[in-house]
């Protein structure tokens, strides 16, 4: 059967319209689109794509089910390995993972695995009730943090027969999926839905519990938990450390996005948390977080949204798709520029940012070419809002309270890659708190491996 050499396009909201709303940008495949795209799969005997998936989803088999029109079965197939398919179908960097390995990709475009995953997850979303599992008696596990890592550990251990309690600092579960990634990329209803499914597995979620403050890890053990998983993410925002950074109108991306996503400031004054966004916004950094902040600013009414990044196009860490979406929406890129200081008026509000031009030198430790400032090339960018999106480190609240968990010089937890085992007996860790800010799927992969290791650890202890 002849199949198309290019992948089936994903319908999207028109950029001119979508910058005025927070609705999802990518609209998802129709049944016809999905059938057409699934036909492109070669059904390789040894599917390379699966090796590119950090949680090992049986990609070939789920796509075969899609091609047969068995969408619910296809969703079930994915769920054997991945507890959050509707999320992953939307935010995973498939182009670097499964799709990068797809054989079709050598001569044509690879199969749009992510789009198919999203389609079947959405299709099956309201069709299948997760069976309510009676809480098991194999042991008690505490999970700290309800991001993708914590949710994955919890779901897997509940399915294995453990009684699992998640402790979450915020008033809503989901971690970055809830407070960081914007509604127009990942609707919160979908996150809530995935969380509800995990709750139906018998997992209890205790919100408003900051572990390390209300109680420590040792107290959790004293309360009878057999093991603790730490999936507290990388929530501590980094700043530039330049003059003017505490002026009004300078935000960390975390604050800006938390106000908008978690607190729903885009619906102010119906929702009571305000967010300030001026006419001209500079976002410093070029990762996914920076793209999200720049695009959010446009939707909040900024006339100009400018990415300021010290390296070049090639080095931008954001996903290609996010950069393209930002460009379509009118985000301006001032690459090879670095902020030197932020300038304010007498009332303490931002009025501009001084930048210096950069050139690329020899590759540094990260393998990317090192940016070097061009002497005397300072110039002023007139802006009234500056959002700093240059990365996050692990939040130290829990770790300060638990000095016997070994950490690295970057503040991340030192944990065994295959098991998540830490230096403290019975404590496992995974996700951004171990790797530093990374991806949803890597956090889930770490959660899966830790669930396996926790099961083995507790069973050994019982015997």
């Amino acid at each position, binding site marked *: 059967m002849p199949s198309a050499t290019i992948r089936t396009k994903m319908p999207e909201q028109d950029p001119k319209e979508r910058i005025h709303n927070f609705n999802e940008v990518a609209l998802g495949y129709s049944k016809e689109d999905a059938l057409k795209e699934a036909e492109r799969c070669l059904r390789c005997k040894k599917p390379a794509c699966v090796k590119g998936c950090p949680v090992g989803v049986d990609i070939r088999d789920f796509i075969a089910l899609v091609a047969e029109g068995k969408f619910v079965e296809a969703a079930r197939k994915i769920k054997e390995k991945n507890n959050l398919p509707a999320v992953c179908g939307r935010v995973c960097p498939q182009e670097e993972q499964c799709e990068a390995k797809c054989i079709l990709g050598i001569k044509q475009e690879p199969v749009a695995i992510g789009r198919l995953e999203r389609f079947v997850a959405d299709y099956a979303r309201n069709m299948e009730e997760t069976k309510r599992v009676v809480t098991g008696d194999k042991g008690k596990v505490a999970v700290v943090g309800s991001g993708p890592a914590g949710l994955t550990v919890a779901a897997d251990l509940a399915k294995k027969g453990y009684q699992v309690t998640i402790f979450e600092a915020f*008033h809503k579960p989901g971690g970055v999926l809830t407070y960081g990634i914007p509604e127009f990329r990942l609707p919160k209803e979908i996150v809530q839905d995935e969380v509800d499914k995990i709750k139906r597995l018998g997992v209890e979620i205790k919100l*408003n519990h900051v572990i390390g403050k209300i*109680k420590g890890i040792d107290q959790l053990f004293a309360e009878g938990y057999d093991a603790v998983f730490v999936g507290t993410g990388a929530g501590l925002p980094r*700043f530039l450390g330049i003059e003017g950074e*505490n002026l009004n109108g300078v935000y960390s991306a975390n604050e800006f996005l938390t106000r908008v996503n978690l*607190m729903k400031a885009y619906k102010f004054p119906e929702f009571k948390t305000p967010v*300030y966004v001026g006419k001209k916004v500079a976002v410093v950094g070029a990762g996914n977080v920076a793209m999200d902040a720049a695009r959010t600013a446009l939707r909040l009414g900024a006339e100009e949204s400018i990415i300021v990044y010290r390296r070049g196009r090639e080095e931008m860490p954001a996903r290609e798709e996010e950069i393209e979406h930002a460009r379509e929406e009118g985000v301006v890129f001032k690459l090879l520029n670095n902020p030197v200081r932020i300038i304010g008026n007498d009332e303490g509000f931002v009025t501009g940012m001084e930048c210096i031009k950069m050139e690329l030198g020899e590759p540094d430790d990260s393998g990317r070419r090192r940016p070097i400032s061009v002497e005397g090339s300072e110039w002023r960018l007139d802006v009234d809002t500056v959002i700093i999106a240059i990365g996050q480190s692990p*939040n130290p609240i829990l770790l300060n309270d638990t000095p016997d968990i070994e950490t690295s010089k970057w503040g991340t937890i030192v944990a065994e890659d295959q098991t998540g085992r830490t230096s403290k007996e019975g404590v496992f860790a995974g996700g951004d708190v171990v790797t530093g800010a990374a991806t949803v799927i890597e956090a889930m992969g770490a959660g899966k491996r830790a669930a396996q290791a926790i099961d083995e650890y507790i069973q050994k202890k019982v015997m």
Partner: protein
Amino acid sequence: MYKILKKEVLAPEITRFKVAAPEIAASAEPGHFIIVRVDEKAERIPLTIADYDKKEGTITIIVQAVGFSSRQICNLETGDSFLDLVGPLGKHISTEGYKKVICVAGGLGAAPLYPKAKSLAENGAEIITILGARTGELLILEEEFSALSKELYITTDDGSRGRKGFVTDALRDLLEEDSDIDLVIAIGPMVMMKFVSELTKPYGVKTMVSLNSLMVDGTGMCGGCRVTVGGETKFACVDGPAFDGHLVDFDEQLRRQRFYARYEEEAKVHGHAGGEYQCHLQQ
């Protein structure tokens, strides 16, 4: 859900709540605060733990109705509940080893000051208290402070109670008279804490203030509560809220507090005050 066990009006627009929160009470120490949310659409509002009872499993908070959100809290009744309540947050302060301490409270600042004063007194410090307010009827916790203080002075801006003037007037006299004060704790409006810190500096008396910075999460995740202390950026929610008053950049804090002022205005026009929580803490 966190149930309100008792509500008392302390002064016009100032309300005290006792809330059932056994786990928080068990870990609470002087200097800690909580964050509450009244309903699904509400802001996260930081409030100092004004008292706690570990045996009873309760915490006390004191709220002044100034904007939409604080008014919404003050309208709750005994038997109602907060949707969310998280804590204890912030760094607790050490109250051991002091001999003679002057506690200075401006307006609602008496509420966050109380647990610190109480703990200092329990640890053997002699307490001298200065309570200040705009007018006499806004004075709160006078009885509570008088029970633990050796001397209690009152100042009001309009002279309706105590000495007419500011807390700094009374403080200056005390510092002149007495040279063995080992700590001044001042909590109240940002300007008051600024002037107290400026006053005590030449006397070389250690001065502690508690900042009511803007906050969102209260756990060090957003940096919205940034404050410059001794030339370094700190996060008030995790490094504070108590800091050495001689090191805090108060002018920066005063500017940062006005960040959302215009939203409060806009929100009022909409019939919903956007409400900035800083004002409720300590005015």
